Each structure stands twice: as C-alpha cells, then as structure tokens.
C-alpha cells in the first residue's frame, strides 16, 4: 500500500510568549523569556515561585459562557487554539467530509486544577459529598478533543494521547499515520496543558524537577548551561490542521510544511530519569529518519527536548552525537524551552510550531540564557546560544521525551512541489 502524503495547512498558538502564532514566532526570534513570578496562586510557601504562564488569555473570545464553565482551562486552551488553526486553514466545514475529519490531542495531565479544587473542597467539608457534576468531565484529558469535536462537528477518530511530556508529539505522529494510511483525511492535532496550580508546582517540586532560581525567573530555564537546575513549568497550547496532500492541493490551501516521518520508542529504564546514554532517544531519532527516508545530513534543525534538567540535556546530546556522527556539529540545535518553559504534554505542539517557524522564516530560534559551558556537553555542537540565527531550513526534527520513558520524534519538510 502506498502511503499518502500529509501536510500542515493551519496553525494556532496560545503560549507564554503570546496568544497567536505571529506573536509567538516574533518573541521566539527575539529570544524573549516567558517566565515570571506566579500570578495564579500565592506561591510564597513553594520552593519554586515562578512559571511561564499564559498572559492575557480571554477564553470568552473563543467560547460561549455556558460552555466555558464546563471546561477546565486545559480544554479552554484546546478549543481556543483549535479555532485559531481552523480559521487559519480556511477550510469550509460545510463542504468537507467531517466523518473523515478527526481530532487527536495531547495532554499529559488534563484538568489538574479542577481535580485539585473539587477534592480540596470535599476535604474541607464535613464529609458530605458535594462534587460538581462537571468535575469528572472537566478533569479527564480526553474531553479536550471531545469539546473540539462537538464545537465543529468533527466526527472522525477522536482521542487523547497521554505520554507525559511527549503527548503532543505522540498525537501528531498518530494523526500523521491515520492520514497516511487512509483512515482519515483531516485532523485537528496538537496539545494543551494547564498545570500551573498548587498541585502542579508542588508535585513537580517534590520530584525535584523544577528550577528554584526564584531571584531570576527569566534566566532560570537555561538548557545546556552548567548551572541549569531544573525545568520551568509552562502552560498553553499549540494546534495544527493535518491534511492529506491532494486534498490540500485541490482546495489551494496554504501549506506550512509536510510531515515526512515519525518515531516512537521507550527507554524501559526508569520512571522519571532519562537513559544516561540516550538509548531510547537515539533510537527514536533514527527511526523517524528511517521512516522519512532521509539521512542525518538532510536535517537542518533539531528542536531538542532540552528541558534544562542536569541529566536530561546530557542524555539527549549524547543521543544526537550517536545518531548524527560528525554531522552533529553542523546541524543547528536549539531548545525553545529556554523561552517558553516546559509545557509538559503541550511541549511538542509549541515546539513543532518553532520548527515550522524555522522553515517559514529561515530563522533558527535561540537557546537563551547560556552563560557557563558544561564540561559534560560537547562545546562544538551548534546550540544556537542566545541569539537567533539565519539559516535556510528544508527539514526540521522535533524531539520530545516523557516521564515513563516515552520518546517521540517528528520530522517536517518544506514543500516545494
């Protein structure tokens, strides 16, 4: 069976750097940090008191008030960003076959704030259960694509991928496969996360995963720097319209890029720590390139997972060196988490948007906050430190890895024919 081609024809962004693709890309290019002291709750007793929050998001601009209150913020981000991508695609929903139009969405956690609020209100009561009937639907992460399907009548395959911080890339690779093997023609895909709340910060603090650089939030996310001390929690969403190539061509759609390959592997090693030699992460990049039918030398840009944790960054760099050999010194590498923070299950979505920016604009977004070289990391690698760099990008690869040892890579290519 000949696989069909899959292209991206619509995009949307709600990020700590801005609530539109344009604003997000501009700030990525400028090297802006999205980190600041937490405004969503009083974090004064927490080890980490800052995060990369979304700013100025008005859900009512996208969703009617009655539906809004039945959605956790994670679904509000999802529906809002899906609307941006659908609008951007110029699809005429009246004329497309919506039974072949699905939604595959990534979210690592789901409605954490709803869970936290409902359970604490029960715990503070006299034992009488007064759970809100919308508690469960607000919490479960599959309601995000559920809401997207209901809002636009999209009746194809519909589910959420939950693979921690790799969830959105997982969703995109799935959507890619479903289209290429003929199951559907169109997908809204991507991911959203909204875990900046007491349970999110407290939980990740307990894992010692977060930076505690409270005196300087904007320089805390510093992938590859010797003084990195953990990731900065981010939130937000990214959305894409994946469309079968002939379908897109027939309607004269703007095509951002083609999805040419995906890889998925597991470390089978540890709950939260990545494999020190990057066993699963090297295999996943190799698999994705094999799937795409390309050689390492064809890749111009790698948007790394690069969370700014002491162990993770080393494992990933080792994996890149293993897979790319000598060419590892020529490929452009950057971690946009230095600016956006770590959007957990939505990370792969906003990072795929950074890859599309590199293809669209011919600009590699930087890894900001680099000051002190780490002797455990090869200084000859081009990690695009501190300033964006012009480079014609034909092929970009995005890595995301999740707790549990899930590894995903996805590869995008400029469309010229």
């Amino acid at each position, binding site marked *: 069976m000949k696989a069909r081609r899959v292209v991206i024809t619509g995009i949307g962004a709600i990020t700590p750097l801005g609530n539109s693709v344009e604003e997000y890309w501009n700030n990525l290019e400028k090297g802006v940090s999205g980190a600041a002291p937490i405004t969503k709750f009083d974090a004064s007793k927490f080890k980490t008191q800052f995060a990369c929050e979304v700013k100025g998001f008005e859900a009512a601009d996208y969703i009617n*008030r009655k539906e809004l209150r039945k959605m956790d913020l994670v679904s509000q981000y999802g529906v809002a960003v899906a609307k941006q991508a659908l609008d951007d695609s110029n699809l005429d929903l009246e004329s497309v076959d919506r039974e072949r139009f699905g939604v595959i969405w990534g979210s690592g956690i789901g409605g954490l704030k709803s869970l936290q609020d409902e359970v604490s209100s029960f715990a503070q009561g006299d034992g009488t259960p007064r759970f809100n*009937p919308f508690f469960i639907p607000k919490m479960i992460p599959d309601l995000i694509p559920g809401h997207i399907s209901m809002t636009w009548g999209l009746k194809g395959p519909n589910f959420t991928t939950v693979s921690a911080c790799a969830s959105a890339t997982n969703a995109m690779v799935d959507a890619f496969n479903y289209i290429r093997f003929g199951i559907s023609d169109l997908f809204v895909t991507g991911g959203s996360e909204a875990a900046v709340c007491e349970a999110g910060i407290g939980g990740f603090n307990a894992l010692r995963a977060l930076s505690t650089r409270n005196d300087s939030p904007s320089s805390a996310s510093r992938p590859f720097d010797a003084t990195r001390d953990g990731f900065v929690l981010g939130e937000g969403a990214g959305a894409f319209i994946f469309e079968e190539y002939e379908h897109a061509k027939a309607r004269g759609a703007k095509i951002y890029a083609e999805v040419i390959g995906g890889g998925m592997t597991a470390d089978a090693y540890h709950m939260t720590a990545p494999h020190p030699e990057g066993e699963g992460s090297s295999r996943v990049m190799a698999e994705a390139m094999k799937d795409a039918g390309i050689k390492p030398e064809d890749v111009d840009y790698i948007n790394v997972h690069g969370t700014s944790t002491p162990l993770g960054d080393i494992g990933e760099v080792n994996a890149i060196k293993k897979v790319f050999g000598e060419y590892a010194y020529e490929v452009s590498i950057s971690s946009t988490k230095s600016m956006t923070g770590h959007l957990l299950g939505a990370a792969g979505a906003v990072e795929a948007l950074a890859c599309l920016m590199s293809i669209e604009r011919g600009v590699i977004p930087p890894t900001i906050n680099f000051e002190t070289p780490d002797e455990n990391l090869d200084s000859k690698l081009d990690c695009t430190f501190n300033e964006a760099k012009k480079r014609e990008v034909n092929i970009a690869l995005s890595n995301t890895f999740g707790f549990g040892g899930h590894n995903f890579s996805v590869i995008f290519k400029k469309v010229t024919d």
Partner: protein
Amino acid sequence: MSEIAEKVKQIIVDKLGVEEADVTPEASFTNDLGADSLDTVELIMEFEKEFNTSIPDDKAESITTVGHAIAYLEDNVN
C-alpha cells in the same frame, strides 16, 4: 420578589448563561433555558450550597422550572 427568588434567578443566570429576562417563574430549565440533565444537577447543587440546605433526590427531580425551585426553597429554607 423575595430574597430567595432573587438569589435563585441569579444562580440560574450565572450557571446557564441566559438573560435575566428569560428567567420567568414558568420557564423550564430544560425546555426554555437550554439546560441538559447535568446542568440541572448542578443547579440543584448550587441551590443547596447557597441556601445551606439539602434537597432529597425525589424532590430534586420534581424541580423542573424556576417557579418550582423558588417555591421549594421558600417552603424549606428559614
């Protein structure tokens, strides 16, 4: 209008996202105000919380209009 009636109307406007003018005593939650079964459950819970009372399930099932809710609460809340 009683204080209870005012509060009931406010809760309905807030939860169902409807115009205040539509919240008449005869208005049915499901037929006139666009509520589904979950919305109705939530309304009852909000009434319980606001008026610090407990509405038994069999009574809750018979509260289907704005007027029913006001009447029940006026009879059962001090």
